[in-house]
């Protein structure tokens, strides 16, 4: 199973109880991985309210994942 590097920001970091994680997963898309994590940590936000970045670039939720990918789920932003 590929190992994915995860980094959590804002409320996701709080809900996951961590900022970074290396996770082995059998899920092959960003969308499926988020659902796995949502079940594990009880993330409040549905994927439809978020975006996903793979290797520091925005990607579609259908993006397939491979060993070593760095994945960040992007809650609604609130900078400025």
């Amino acid at each position, binding site marked *: 199973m590929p190992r994915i590097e995860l*980094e959590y*920001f*804002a*409320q996701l*970091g*709080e809900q996951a109880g961590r900022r970074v994680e290396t996770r082995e997963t059998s899920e092959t898309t960003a969308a499926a991985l988020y659902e796995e994590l949502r079940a594990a940590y009880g993330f409040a936000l549905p994927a439809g309210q978020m975006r996903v*970045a793979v290797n*520091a*670039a*925005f990607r579609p939720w259908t993006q397939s994942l491979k060993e070593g990918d760095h994945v*960040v789920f*992007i*809650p*609604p*932003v*609130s*900078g*400025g």
Partner: protein
Amino acid sequence: MSRFLIADTTVDIGALRETLLKPEAGGFCTFEGWVRQTNDGRLVSAIEYEAFAPLAISEGRSILDEVRERFDITATCAMHRTGYLPVGDLAVWIGVAAPHRDAAFKACRYVIDEIKRRVPIWKREHYVDGQIEWVACHHVG
């Protein structure tokens, strides 16, 4: 010249402004976002900003590239803070120099609007009553 900075300490905005001084520019517009003492009627003591820095920088650069295409401007630069900022602190700074004022104003407004819309930065408000909350999303204004 267009730079987008994510900074975890105080930035000398006079120095940022200096980098935008060009003899072909006649109008210069800046926008600053300051930590305000109230939000939605609640008393705020500080705001903590967190950024996914690599993506925030590349998305910020995209915004600055877009304004250079859309408006007749000479130079632009933007900076966003991260970390714990008490009331009154500077959270964001944007400067746009242009031959004429209309483009300077419009481009500066575009940059702050787009930063708020799409740059991966999040704020957690610290209230005077001791509560701390991530701000879910932007309100109008």
